[in-house]
């Protein structure tokens, strides 16, 4: 995996984190700020910070750090959650988003100084935390052994985290020198410098293994010149999880202290380190009386206590096992009841430990056998993997082909009279399952689109001075990833439009007897194979007079045209209507509602509008669950088989003669419960031969269109209703007006899929001209 790929993962992660944080803060804003929510927000920001550091996005890291610091106090309950604070956090989140875009897309780096100052300022305002926290017993189960406090100054320098080391090596050197300068006294006599290492109890308790570190010191050229055994308790009292030894090491002058420091990086305060301790009396550098580390560490432990034996037996060091007789102990008059004063400082009898019980090594060894075969697969339920979308789409495509092949086979078998075989039914149901599963892979909750809305609304409120409350329903509704991705733009436009044109200013609202705060509702639901997304506001509704006047002015309709309210409302979708660009730059930034409709249509969906003056407007987007497979009605027109996308079909009927009204020579209208809609004989469009022309002998499929209202398509009969895979004509032939694409039918024949919208619009326009 390349660094870029890992970075790509990080960016995706950032997006998820930003979404999660947004949702969390939105919940806080509404008063739902339980621990989980607050923690989630914290974690989201925290994880961005982590990655930012790893990828050296310093500005992002710096900002997340400031943000996180404040969030941390919120999480810990130090900062009370108030609206003003949440607003600040939301603004910080917006800023974080900008920072993210800066690193991902190279957007300009936002100026975060003022906001960081604000974030810091709330911290200052908080009750003096530094004083209160330690006092509060609830804050932390301070198990941190008192030992920590006893750690000598050198220990502080030797913090066991990496940041100081990564931050500036040079600085570290200075610090070390300064610290080392203190106890310089007895050092002159020996070449090199010394270090007293005293493992604390924790060094054993947490899977630590001091001997490994001591061996590493030897490798670095250190010499163990003294082992302090005075703290070793009586053999009966030896606790193998406690440490009771301390070693003094002598290092060559030339050896960089940092190398030694690094050895203890990761165990930190588990060891008490005293630099430059006096060399114990009687030691001479020449006398090669180096104490064997392994021996000292092993020796005092072996007490003939029963349970101690097995521990020693599995020690990773081979030799000492044999020597573990009390008699073999070299320097250990162990049961010294009273601490003898020695040259070693730090003489206070630590609750001392002995054998570092090296059991884990053996345990790990033993387990090695059954391990390895089981990779990281055994993780929890919510596991996920990231797949290249291209692979997924190929799968979906192939599944589509499979569906068709299965249908073709079923039909062939039906002709052969063997369709009733059980295996075929099984195959069919399996195919359907596979198809559904494949679709489900691409499905994503629409919440990812909705979650971007709150920020947009905040910005809109600022720029318009209007007050908006957002209500969301059905965020969990799932739809195809591509649909979700392409939904963002039209949805954004609709929302901007709703706030800009739909909602009134607080003053206007109050004057109209409404609450000053407008409500924008976003909802999503699945209904009969489609997803309905609604954007509604409780504003003033569409100003039909103005819309009509504008349409006339732009030459979209003639001044005499008789238009229903619905027709007028739909004018806002007409190309060239856009009021937005001229009125303000908020709604759509110069993009008209016709583009919105086009976007939705490109997704195989439709948009409709319902508006009530003074009460508000509601835009409904009806979208297919997936783009790859659609439901269609298969109809015959003469010798042609056509597919009418089910999304457009309202109903189908065979009219009685009195329901058909002729308008002139060539036009017929269908009276559907008192409403007249044009009848369009499809044979004219597809050039079919031998098609039915008499509506009362044919079937009328009533379809709904966006731009031309309803129409009744005249077909010979309806043959089937099934799912089909859309194959674009553009790629295989060329775009044909009125045709959305083609599909392969069960019998292997190609059928054209009607583009109902353009077909009806064209036909209606032609007829108008003809009439």
């Amino acid at each position, binding site marked *: *995996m390349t660094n870029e*790929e*890992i970075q790509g*993962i*990080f960016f*995706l*992660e950032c997006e998820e984190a930003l979404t999660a944080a947004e949702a969390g803060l939105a919940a806080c804003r509404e008063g739902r700020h339980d621990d989980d929510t607050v923690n*989630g927000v*914290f*974690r989201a920001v*925290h*994880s961005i910070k*982590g*990655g930012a*550091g*790893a*990828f050296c996005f310093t500005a992002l890291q710096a900002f997340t750090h400031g943000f996180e610091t404040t969030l941390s106090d919120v999480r810990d309950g130090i900062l009370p959650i108030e609206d003003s604070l949440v607003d600040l956090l939301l603004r910080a989140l917006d800023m974080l988003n900008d920072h993210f875009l800066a690193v991902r897309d190279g957007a300009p780096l936002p100026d975060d100084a003022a906001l960081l100052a604000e974030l810091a300022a709330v911290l200052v305002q908080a009750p003096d935390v530094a004083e209160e*926290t330690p006092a509060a017993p609830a804050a*932390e*189960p*301070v*198990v*941190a052994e008192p030992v920590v406090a006893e750690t000598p100054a050198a220990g502080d320098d030797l913090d*066991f*985290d*990496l*940041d100081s*080391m*990564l931050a500036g090596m040079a600085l570290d050197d200075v610090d070390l020198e300064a610290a080392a300068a203190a106890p310089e006294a007895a050092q002159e006599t020996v070449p090199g410098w010394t270090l007293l290492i005293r493992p604390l109890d*924790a060094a054993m*308790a*947490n*899977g*630590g*293994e001091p001997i*490994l570190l001591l061996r590493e010191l030897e490798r670095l050229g250190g010499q163990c010149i003294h082992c302090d055994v005075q703290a070793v308790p009586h053999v009966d009292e030896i606790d193998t999880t406690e440490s009771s030894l301390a070693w003094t090491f002598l290092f060559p002058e030339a050896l960089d202290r940092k190398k030694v420091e*690094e050895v203890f*990086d*990761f*165990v*930190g305060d*588990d060891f008490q380190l005293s630099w430059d301790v006096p060399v114990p009396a009687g030691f001479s550098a020449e006398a090669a009386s180096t104490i064997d580390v392994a021996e000292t560490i092993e020796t005092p432990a072996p007490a003939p206590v029963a349970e101690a034996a097995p521990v020693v037996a599995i020690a990773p060091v081979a030799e000492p096992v044999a020597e573990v007789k009390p008699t073999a102990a070299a320097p250990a008059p162990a049961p010294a009841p009273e601490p003898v004063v020695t040259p070693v400082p730090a003489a206070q009898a630590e609750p001392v430990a002995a054998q570092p*019980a*090296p*059991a*884990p*090594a053996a*345990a*790990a060894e*033993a*387990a*090695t056998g059954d*391990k390895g075969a*089981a990779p*990281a697969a*055994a*993780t*929890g339920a919510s*596991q996920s993997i*990231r797949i290249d979308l291209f692979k997924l789409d190929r799968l979906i495509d192939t599944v589509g082909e499979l569906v068709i092949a299965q249908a073709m086979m079923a039909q062939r078998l039906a002709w052969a009279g063997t369709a009733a075989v059980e295996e075929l039914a099984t195959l069919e149901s399996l195919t359907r399952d596979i198809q559904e599963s494949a679709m489900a892979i691409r499905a994503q909750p629409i919440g990812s689109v909705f979650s971007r809305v709150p920020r947009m609304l905040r910005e809109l409120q600022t720029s318009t001075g209007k007050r908006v409350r957002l209500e969301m329903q059905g965020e969990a509704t799932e739809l195809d990833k591509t649909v979700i991705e392409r939904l963002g733009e039209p949805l954004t436009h609709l929302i901007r439009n709703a706030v800009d044109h739909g909602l009134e200013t607080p003053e206007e609202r109050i004057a109209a007897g409404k609450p000053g705060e407008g409500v924008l509702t976003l909802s999503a639901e699945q209904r009969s194979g489609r997803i309905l997304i609604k954007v509604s506001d409780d504003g003033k509704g569409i100003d039909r007079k103005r819309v009509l006047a504008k349409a006339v002015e732009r030459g979209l309709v003639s001044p005499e045209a008789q238009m229903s309210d619905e027709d007028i409302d739909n004018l806002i979708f007409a190309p060239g209507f856009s009021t937005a660009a001229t009125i303000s730059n908020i709604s759509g930034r110069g993009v008209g509602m016709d583009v919105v409709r086009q976007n939705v249509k490109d997704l195989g969906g439709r948009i409709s509008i319902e508006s009530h003056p003074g009460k508000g407007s509601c835009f409904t987007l009806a979208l297919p669950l997936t783009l790859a497979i659609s439901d269609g009605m298969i109809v015959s027109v003469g010798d042609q088989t056509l597919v009418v996308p089910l999304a457009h079909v309202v109903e189908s009927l065979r009219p009685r003669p009195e329901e058909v009204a002729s308008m002139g020579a060539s036009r017929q209208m269908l009276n559907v419960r008192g409403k007249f809609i044009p009848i369009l004989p499809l044979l004219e469009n597809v050039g079919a031969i031998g098609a039915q022309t008499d509506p009362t002998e044919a079937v009328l499929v009533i379809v709904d269109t966006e731009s031309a209202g309803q129409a009744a398509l005249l077909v010979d009969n309806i043959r089937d209703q099934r799912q089909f895979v859309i194959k674009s004509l553009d790629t295989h032939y060329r775009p044909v007006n009125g045709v959305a694409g083609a599909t392969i039918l069960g019998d292997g024949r190609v059928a054209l899929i009607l583009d109902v919208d353009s077909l009806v619009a064209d036909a209606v326009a032609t007829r108008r001209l003809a009439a």
Partner: protein
Amino acid sequence: MIKVFTVDDSASMRALLLHALTGHGFAVDQAEHGLAALEWLKDNEPDVIITDINMPKLDGFGLIEKLRADERHRDRPILVLTTESSDEKKARARAAGATGWIVKPFDAEKLASAVRRVSH
């Protein structure tokens, strides 16, 4: 080969760890939060565990406490790898039973030597 098990909810962090650790010759397995880690550790015995602190479901502190309470994992070296660097958090990690602490962003070399140092 030293077997390292990493626990981190961030996919990019997992990828970085995988990259860094396998590059230093360790065998690496991964989980994305404490619960998943516990599940995996039921059947596996890595030499060293590296865990994040802030994770959903079960955080690093909780994971370490649970492992330390388990006979099988009582003495397993556990390194904490996190962006948290406060002393209070360190103390808490140690109290929970962490063997060591590494602050993100990590240096691959240092991480590798840390793993070698604590692996028994």
